[in-house]
């Protein structure tokens, strides 16, 4: 590929005035800008607004169906593993253990498990867990720190399978679990923590 004069790039990026180009270079820059203008002004066919609004009015399928569909659908995801020490620390300190149902607690379905979240946020006023299991709605799963030592805990029954999640600190700061060990880049460019819940019947 033949490189073009760097001045054309500089002029198109606004780094030098167009007047700094020779007549020949200006013709090339004009050609590119004319092409872009044609593309920008091209007529659009139709609108998807009605289609989108109709889709929004349809209720979401049950969470379990969505989880199953998510598991069965191929996803282009980047899985990044933390260094071994981090995984070991995560295993020692943290969550995602499958607990037997405590006496008196509601019985778990065969395809459900209990995920235990533990996170250290000294000085935080509130910590919540949001994720694919609660439509990323802050506040719906609040962690607790009854002894005010900065360690926040909570447990929640989840369908078996993979779940992406993050912590929301003080209602506004979204933080990936530093000890999750597994992370997935989602469609929105964030690196979410990933947990795997195994069914209690397994």
């Amino acid at each position, binding site marked *: *590929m*033949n*490189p*073009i004069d760097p001045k*054309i*790039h500089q002029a*198109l*990026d606004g780094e030098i005035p167009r007047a700094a180009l020779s007549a020949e270079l200006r013709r*090339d820059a004009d*050609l*590119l*800008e004319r*092409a*872009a203008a*044609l*593309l*920008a002004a*091209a*007529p*659009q*066919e*139709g*609108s*998807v*607004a009605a*289609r*989108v*609004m109709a*889709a*929004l*009015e349809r209720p*979401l399928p049950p969470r379990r169906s969505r989880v199953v569909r998510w598991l069965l659908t191929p996803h*282009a995801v980047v899985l990044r593993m933390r260094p071994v020490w981090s995984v070991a620390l995560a295993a020692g300190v943290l969550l995602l253990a499958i607990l037997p149902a405590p006496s008196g607690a509601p019985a778990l379905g065969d395809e459900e498990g209990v995920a235990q979240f533990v996170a250290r946020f000294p000085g935080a006023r509130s910590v919540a867990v*949001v994720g694919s299991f609660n*439509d*990323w*709605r*802050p506040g719906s799963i609040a962690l607790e720190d009854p002894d005010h030592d900065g360690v926040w805990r909570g447990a929640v029954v989840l369908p078996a399978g993979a779940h992406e999640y993050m912590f929301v600190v003080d209602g506004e700061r*979204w933080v990936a679990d530093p000890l999750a060990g597994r992370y997935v880049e989602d*469609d*929105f*460019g*964030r690196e979410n923590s990933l947990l795997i819940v195994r069914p209690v019947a397994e």
Partner: protein
Amino acid sequence: MDVGGTLSDAEVVARVLGGDREAFGLVIRRYEPGLLRYATRILGSSDAAADAVAEGLVRAYRHLASCRDPGRLRTWLYRIVANRCKSQLARRPTADVSLDDVPPIVDPGDTEAALERAEQLALVERALMTLPPDKREAFVLKHVEGMSYEEMSAATGERIPTLKMRVHRAREALLRALKEYL
């Protein structure tokens, strides 16, 4: 064009999250034209672009609570639609598409100038589709959607030097192709 009066993106997002589903219509009206234009250039098909944009907007609504900076809603939406486009391209048997067989949009009532414009547009579209998808995307975001490199970085997740290099390469290839066609 003033879409949605004086409401900022952050205010519209707050309304939607507060339960006003219809307010999402403002988001659609505000950004649909650019998203469709972008997706059409990336996918080379207006039908495929409509699918990608519709899917992207539905996903955006469902995950709106996770939009951490509603003031940057525009680049957030482009990122979602860009990922829908990439998924579509990944599912295609061949990575690239051609507009060679697509005639220019011509109306019988068009003037001669309009006909010439449609012909030129078809040539530019053909030249654009000769670029690899990543360079095509960079050129479209920069020169058709008018984004800054910072906004492009937010919309694609790529580093600014990488995007600059792609834009430069796209300009070089496009200029060469345009000189050949025009």
